[in-house]
């Protein structure tokens, strides 16, 4: 013991704390064991011991963590705990500071996946409000998949059937194996930067759960999240959603279904446009008809002292408007609009109401009938009605001068 000095307890404890704290492996360990001596004080923290036949491990799970437990702990339950090993100086014991607890019996890979999924979820990668709408008509559709797989053929076939002229850009990537995650992420990044690509499908054909692992990696999930255009995941596994499925803006059960989401049916869009164009035209034609009907009604009901020629003039104005309508079907720029407005103004000015407002009046028999155009049409003593711009006069004829 020569050369060594006597340590205070706290010094030894601090030394052990450093030793354990510097061990990377102890910072994140998975331990399996049976729960015993479980305590839940009012603080909300959980204290228990994990044990097997030969050893015991003191564990604490703080309230912030235990709040998120998806199942109820009890003594005797076998679990897997993930956490950090550290010294508790006051009692001079080491213990496991538990971050997460899973039921025993889960494989290591699925445990790690659950942990990753929980982390990405906390970061908001799966958030519903973050999902972007797909474009109605993409300029180009990006495809991230294997160049040799059935998925590519399916997506191309469906796209061509729905919209023969649609442009497709394949960013080839291996979809399984060690290099797959980075290749998939890189392909997404390149397509996102390319420009003119309005939606991307990342997909593969169906297969076993092992084949899906690339779509369950953090690098792929983050690449989808970072992609500047909406991404449709078509990983082809209906029971388990992959991380890619959960991050993507939309998911589809198969690559074909993804292509149906991404690519519109061209004939349907054309039909929609035809219907809109026809409705627009009917709307204007209806207005013209209304104007024409109004004009004719005015002329008749007011019994205007107008030669037939005047009526024809006004009808001609409306015909002119209709001509404009037809012309604008083909040529819709230039001075035509202005000419049209001028015509419309003249039409208004020439209306019978406008003439009355200038001080002219219409004379007719009481209760309507045609306008009286000649003085000899009435005899002295007869009653006539004079229609003014505002109101009517009921008059008796005193005398008649010839004309």
């Amino acid at each position, binding site marked *: 013991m020569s050369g060594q000095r006597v340590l205070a307890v706290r010094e030894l404890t601090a030394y052990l704390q450093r030793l354990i704290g510097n061990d990377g492996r102890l910072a994140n360990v998975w331990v399996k064991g049976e729960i015993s001596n479980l305590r839940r004080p009012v603080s909300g923290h959980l204290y228990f011991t994990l044990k097997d036949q030969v050893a015991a491990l003191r564990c604490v799970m703080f309230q912030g963590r235990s709040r998120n437990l998806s199942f109820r702990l009890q003594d005797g339950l076998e679990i897997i705990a993930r956490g950090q090993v550290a010294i508790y100086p006051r009692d001079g014991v080491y213990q496991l500071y538990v971050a997460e607890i899973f039921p025993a019996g889960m494989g290591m890979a699925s445990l790690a996946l659950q942990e990753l999924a929980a982390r990405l979820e906390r970061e908001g990668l799966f958030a519903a409000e973050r999902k972007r709408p797909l474009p109605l008509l993409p300029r180009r559709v990006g495809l991230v998949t294997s160049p040799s797989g059935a998925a590519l053929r399916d997506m191309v*076939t469906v796209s*061509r059937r729905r919209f023969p002229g649609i442009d497709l850009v*394949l960013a080839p990537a291996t979809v399984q194996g060690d290099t797959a995650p980075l290749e998939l992420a890189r392909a997404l990044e390149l397509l996102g930067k390319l420009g003119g690509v309005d939606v991307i499908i990342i997909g593969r054909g169906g297969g076993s759960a092992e084949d899906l692992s690339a779509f369950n990696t953090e690098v792929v999930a983050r690449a989808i999240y970072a992609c500047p255009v909406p991404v449709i995941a078509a990983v082809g596994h209906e029971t388990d959603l992959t991380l890619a499925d959960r991050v993507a803006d939309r998911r589809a059960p198969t690559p074909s279904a993804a292509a149906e989401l991404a690519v519109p049916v061209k004939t349907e869009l054309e039909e929609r446009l035809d219907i*809109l164009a026809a409705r*627009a035209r009917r*709307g204007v034609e209806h*207005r013209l008809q209304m104007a024409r009907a109004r004009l004719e009604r005015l002329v008749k009901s007011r019994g205007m002292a107008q030669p037939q020629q005047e009526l024809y003039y006004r009808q001609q104005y409306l015909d002119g408007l209709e001509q404009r309508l037809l012309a*604008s079907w083909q040529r819709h720029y230039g001075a035509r609009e202005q000419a049209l407005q001028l015509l*419309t103004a003249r039409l208004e000015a020439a209306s019978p109401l406008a003439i009355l407002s200038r001080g002219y009046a219409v004379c007719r028999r009481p209760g309507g009938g045609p306008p009286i155009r000649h003085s000899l049409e009435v005899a002295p003593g007869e009653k006539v009605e004079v229609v003014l711009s505002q109101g009517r006069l009921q008059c008796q004829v005193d005398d008649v001068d010839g004309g």
Partner: protein
Amino acid sequence: MPEGEQLKFEEALQKLEGIVRALEGEGLTLEDSLAYYQEGIRLVRLCRQRLQEVEGKLQALLVHEGEVVLKEISLPGGEGYGA
């Protein structure tokens, strides 16, 4: 094509639908309705044009000596149009 350089298809379609609704409703004067109509027809033509603009290419994005290039490709055995 940078964003905003031209009206997106769905934006044009939305505008067109608004114009048609206005034309079908009351409240537009005759001359306004003709102006609306002309704008509507312009949008119809724009949308139709957009439907024809695409070329039906199938390209692959490849990285060649650090440069991103697009190369025309075809599916082995041709494309299964009938499926």
